[in-house]
């Protein structure tokens, strides 16, 4: 029993953090809003060179063969900088799905290799999401249809853009037809792949939500320290201190839930529903509270387009609802708690009993 990350994991996360903090700024995000794709090709290539797209690609396909647990801290850092590029969706959500089918389907093997080298990008649809994000820059789309999962070149689908409140997000309704040649997996395997994809999607969103929450708290603490009113820093008011302390409490207790979810997804994926739903709900609450208390503590400034806070707030509002909103995940927890066979209690925190 050891609930800590390894030195290697922490050091790697730190280097990625430094990279992201340097390359992804509020200014660079704003630049993206006005560009055609909203995405930065050069930045993507830098991430590829750091090995980020290869992390969860199995070694036999030229990847690093790492796990969701290895990636979760990085996903948190993606949230911290409000990264617009679909790194989490590609590396954490799509890649393991392809890897699962790679020994049965040559298309997956090829695609995995090219994801690792940055030559191909994949977008993922799922029944819980009404839209597919970043479909416009994907070479391939993974799309569900009943119990089937299909893999299609982007040319085979038609994309209807939808505008999100978050100008960094690029969302699409996808019109397409399943065909025999596009089928990737079906039946029970399809169902289970879809369930695992949902869990990874929710895990990735939860990790980003915590990064977003921490970033909003940091920028609010900074603002309220610098801003003077009635002759003193507004952050010296107890009401604002308590707003921020409440955010910190939420975030601090969402993090271990997130890390348990990442561990469970990587080690016992079929028992991960409970842990993932817990993490997604807790992370969403932490991020929504940080947004609410953040704008409140900023005062009128927080309500403006020029203050950077809204970039993070809007991402938080969106990701809280993506890959299963709070109600969806609380309902999964509730179903499980109502099951008379659910093993709960002080001695049951770790183990295989967390199956919904």
């Amino acid at each position, binding site marked *: 029993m050891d609930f800590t990350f390894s030195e290697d994991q922490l050091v790697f996360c730190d280097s990625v953090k430094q990279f992201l903090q340097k390359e992804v700024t509020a200014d660079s995000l704003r630049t993206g809003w006005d560009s055609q794709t909203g995405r930065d090709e050069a930045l993507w290539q830098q991430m590829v060179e750091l090995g980020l797209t290869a992390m969860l690609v199995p070694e036999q396909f030229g990847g690093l063969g790492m796990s969701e647990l290895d990636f979760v801290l990085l996903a948190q850092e993606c949230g911290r900088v409000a990264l617009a590029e679909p790194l989490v969706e590609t590396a954490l959500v799509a890649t393991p799905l392809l890897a699962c089918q790679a020994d049965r389907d040559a298309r997956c093997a090829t695609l995995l290799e090219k994801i690792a080298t940055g030559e191909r990008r994949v977008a993922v649809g799922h029944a819980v999401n009404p839209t597919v994000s970043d479909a416009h820059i994907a070479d391939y789309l993974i799309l569900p249809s009943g119990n089937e999962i299909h893999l299609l070149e982007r040319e085979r689908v038609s994309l209807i853009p939808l*505008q999100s409140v978050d100008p960094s997000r690029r969302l699409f309704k996808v019109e397409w037809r399943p065909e025999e040649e596009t089928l990737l997996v079906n039946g029970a395997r399809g169902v289970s792949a879809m369930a695992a994809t949902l869990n990874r999607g929710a895990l990735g969103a939860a990790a980003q939500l915590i990064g977003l929450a921490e970033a909003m708290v940091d920028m609010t603490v900074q603002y309220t320290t610098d801003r003077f009113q009635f002759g003193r820093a507004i952050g010296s008011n107890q009401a604002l201190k308590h707003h921020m302390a409440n955010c910190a409490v939420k975030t601090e207790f969402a993090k271990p839930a997130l890390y348990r979810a990442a561990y469970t997804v990587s080690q016992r994926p079929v028992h991960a529903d409970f842990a993932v739903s817990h993490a997604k709900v807790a992370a969403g609450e932490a991020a929504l509270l940080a947004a609410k208390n953040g*704008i*409140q503590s900023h005062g009128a400034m927080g309500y*403006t387009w020029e203050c950077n806070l809204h970039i993070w707030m809007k991402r938080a*509002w969106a990701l809280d609802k993506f890959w299963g909103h709070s109600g969806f995940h609380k309902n999964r927890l509730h179903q499980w708690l109502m099951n008379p066979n659910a093993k709960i209690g002080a001695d049951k925190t770790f183990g295989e009993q967390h199956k919904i």
Partner: protein
Amino acid sequence: MDLNYTPEQIAFRHEVRDWLQANVPRTALKSFDTAEGFEQHRQWEQTLAQGNWGMVTWPKEYGGRGCNLIEWLIFEEEYYRAQAPLRVNQNGIFLLGPTLMEYGTPEQKERFITKMASGEEMWAQGWSEPGAGSDMAAIRSKAVREGDEYVLNGQKVWSTRAVFADWVFCIFRTDPTSERHHGLSFILVPLDAPGITVRPIPQLNGLPGFAEIFFDDVRVPVANCLGGEGEGWNIAMATAGFERGLMLRSPARFQETAKRLVALYREHANDIVDLSVEDAVVKSFMDAEAYALSTYQTASRLMKGGKIGSEASVNKISWSELDQHMHETAMRILANNAELLPDANTEATVGNWLEGFLFAQSGPIYAGTNEIQRNIIAERLLGMPRK
């Protein structure tokens, strides 16, 4: 206590309802934070004025109907029920108008109230300055008297409607040796005066709901000072009293939102898995009702000669947190469609809920943050120690 409307009140309600039914534009106007929408709303103000419905509580001489507060509440109920356009000139008719009537000279009343009432002149509000948001007394913008004119220099910020409005009312420091809330004056300034620069400030939704105004040797006649030189603080407090008081946050607005929320909830009742949404909807409805009841109570009291006290702060907290709560609840019901903009290319459009959600974020902040309102309640209503 008699909670029945009189036959006259019922007749008045029908008169309002009929007029609105005949006159409210069939298609929603564009946002008044766009140039096109602003002119549409100005047009609507003129339509209201032509029917003498611009400001029903005003005396008849200013185009009003001399209505009492209960009639005003009835008017507002019908107004929101009819989904009539928002009031673009609210800074004028709800804030400056009543202040002018109380403190203006006969000339000022004649010059300003009529054009405000007719929809000809739209007003912006200009109180805050950089470094003086909640701390309104930290004002540094100066007005120096030269003969019959003031020469204005300085900067205002968070000026609502200033991007498209015609006039702005501001506070300036007329006594350069004064400090805090002394030596201030309340001055009316045309926004097309030479030396004025208006820099729009886009808000969360990207539209410029407010602006910064820079004053660079702007000259206005001393006749534009309202309530006497050096009286600015008192006049501003009176105006802010109106702002925080009854008029601006009509309970009808929140009751109609609650009604739409109930409808949204009923519509989605079968696909809502988060059962605590039920509680949030019931709470929304109760709180909107309570706000309406409280307003009727206050209105009844005022009509018997009472005064508005610290209800203002209690109200501010109540409507702003209610509005936030209702929109958060709507977002939860709309779930993963909630992030989509209303003009999105989809049938799953979320109507105006997202726009309302963004706007609701400002409620607990503007017109005195809710933290400050809570201080006021604790210190003035409950008598807790200041330091």
